[in-house]
């Protein structure tokens, strides 16, 4: 081993230990990444988010490892020797850099794994969002620095689990709003369809975490880390930058995501045209197929379908087109249910009321539900049970139902939701 290499791994153990540590970090990181199953298979952006979410546990564990390592380093008697070296701050910080690198490799491996899996499952990659790994790596630096500080100053092995717990707690404090979310990476659990990372918010997070990391590393050994004027100036600037970013993040609303002004859509189907956001097209073919099967009942009544049904993305309200409103798990799955397809067919217009802060009239829910059941019944996909509230009406015959279906559908198309009524006797 050369001296240079020795500087990297001396305090982490031999190669086998380092490899085992890496495997352990990956295993730990998979826990949060897989905490919601593998639903991110349907969205590459969500997979990327799940990958960075691994830091929720990788970071605290890395902080614990850093703490234990720096307890070893600080109590070894090496410090006087490194103080007489040409750049004492470098041997002091190098183990931290190694631990950060190891944890970064673990996070990157997980991210690579989940994003590749998502791409193989059909999700469209958005490589231009990969820059979000940079703020994540800065968060990791701050997490490791917590361990360095506690180990370098505390010099007690039992502080290692304390460092891990403290780092995890910092994430929790951010999540509950007790402090700005500077330790957060990923984990929102939405598809991000039609959205992208907000560069301003994540830039502020990057600045804040760099400031925290620099400050903590300086405090871990002020004499060594702050030895030269240059290092003192650089650290002071980073801490100042971090403080400013922290204060700005603590004031006002800083969403991590913002809507894309003109999200790209992918459309399928001829008889029924359905469009979904390019990043979440996994269930599109199945949805089109099921909608086409059920839509024939509407056409039999001479009703006109909207030119297309479009994914309900932020700012995309357009009453001239139908709306595709799916739950997150429906959007991410490879198939949808017939009930979901029927529900989409009962949304022939993207009425603003569906997403308004004021709920649409109660009757609109009931009528759309009945219309969906009628579609399923007509397609032979529903057999009403004896005690179903609508059994009698569903089995009453098309001529009995024509008037209500036609009127209701036109009212839904024109977003005249206040006029919606259930048929007599239902």
């Amino acid at each position, binding site marked *: 081993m050369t*001296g240079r290499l*020795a*500087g990297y791994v001396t305090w982490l153990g031999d190669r086998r230990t380092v490899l085992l540590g890496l495997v352990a970090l990956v295993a730990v990181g998979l826990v949060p990444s897989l905490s919601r199953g593998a639903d991110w298979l349907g969205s590459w952006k969500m997979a990327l988010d799940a990958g960075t979410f691994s830091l929720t546990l990788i970071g605290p564990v890395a902080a614990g490892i850093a703490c234990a390592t720096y307890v*070893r380093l600080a109590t070894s008697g*090496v410090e006087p*020797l490194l*103080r007489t*070296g040409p750049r004492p701050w470098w041997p002091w910080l190098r183990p931290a850099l190694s631990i950060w690198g190891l944890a970064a490799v673990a996070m990157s491996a997980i991210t690579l794994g989940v994003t590749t899996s998502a791409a193989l499952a059909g999700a469209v990659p958005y490589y231009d969002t990969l820059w979000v790994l940079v703020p994540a790596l800065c968060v990791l630096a701050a997490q490791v620095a917590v361990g360095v500080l506690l180990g370098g100053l505390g010099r007690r092995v039992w502080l290692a689990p304390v460092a891990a717990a403290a780092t995890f707690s910092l994430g929790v404090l951010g999540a509950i709003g007790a402090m700005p979310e500077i330790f957060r990476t990923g984990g929102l659990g939405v598809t991000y369809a039609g959205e992208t990372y907000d560069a301003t918010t994540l830039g502020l997070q990057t600045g804040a975490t760099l400031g925290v990391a620099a400050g903590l590393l300086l405090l871990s050994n002020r004499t060594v880390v702050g030895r030269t004027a240059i290092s003192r100036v650089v650290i002071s600037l980073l801490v100042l930058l971090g403080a400013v970013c922290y204060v700005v993040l603590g004031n006002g609303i800083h969403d991590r995501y913002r809507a894309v002004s003109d999200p790209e859509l992918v459309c399928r189907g001829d008889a029924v045209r359905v469009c979904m956001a390019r990043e979440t097209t996994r269930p599109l073919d199945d949805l089109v197929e099921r909608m086409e099967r059920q839509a024939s009942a509407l056409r039999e009544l001479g009703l006109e379908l909207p030119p297309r049904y479009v994914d309900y993305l932020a700012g995309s309200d357009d009453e001239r087109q139908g709306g595709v409103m799916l739950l997150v798990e429906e959007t991410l799955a490879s198939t949808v249910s017939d009930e979901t397809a029927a529900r989409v067919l009962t949304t022939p217009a993207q009425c603003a009321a569906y997403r308004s802060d004021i709920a649409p009239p109660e009757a609109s829910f009931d009528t759309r539900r009945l219309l969906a059941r009628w579609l399923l019944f007509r397609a032979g996909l529903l057999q009403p049970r004896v005690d179903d509230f609508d059994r009698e009406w569903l089995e009453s015959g098309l001529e009995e139902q024509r008037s209500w279906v036609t009127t209701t559908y036109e009212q839904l198309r024109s977003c005249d939701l206040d006029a919606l009524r259930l048929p007599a006797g239902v």
Partner: protein
Amino acid sequence: MTEVAPGLRVSELRCHYPPASAAVVDIGELTLGPGATGLVGVNGAGKTTLLLTLAGARRPQHGTVTLDGVDLYGRDRREIVTRIGFMPQELDLPRELRVADAVSYVSWLRGVPGRVAATREPELLELVGLQDRRTDRLGRLSGGMRRRLVLATALVTAPGVLLLDEPTTGLDPEQRANLRALLMDLPGATVTVLSSHVMEDVEQMTTRIAVLDEGRVLHHGGTAAFVEERGGPHRSAELAFLTTLSGARS
């Protein structure tokens, strides 16, 4: 132009550990010239702090330390400290590290260029008798071997000044005798400062002695004369030390 006396020289040196303001080292003038000087004192006398300051590892709050007239904490610090080798009282490197790697690591810490370090490492291990243990892990070394390894790491910069902090502590008599013999035969260093509790080591290995108590130098002079004058009829170095200590305290 004034001729500069060779060796380490401290002047108006005061060291303390904040926030305490009491000095743990408080020395007006002390010159440690060519040859071996023993630094003796009770626990807490300030020996290790003084050695760290002499090694360039601990900047004093007041005063200067020079080596051959060059300020150890001045502009030429980087160059001058490489001329000093320091053997700390404890060097607890990871047990899984191999012997050769330990020397490489300390060489890297001390800024020895890789090529030079690679050449010196086998030479140093041969010097301390560990050439057959190059690939052994540190955990497999005996206490005496570990101390010899630490000595090898103190020599990575080929120093002209060697500072030894309790080099024989924790060793059995045989290991101590071996290490002592090794230290006395070391080539290269012109100035050696040996801090030790073991008066036998100091008496045998040094030509001058400095007695330290509460950070101050109580006595500085020839070792033989020190033992002769204060060691009683049996010329006991320990008695000489205790006599000096009690005389100063009374």
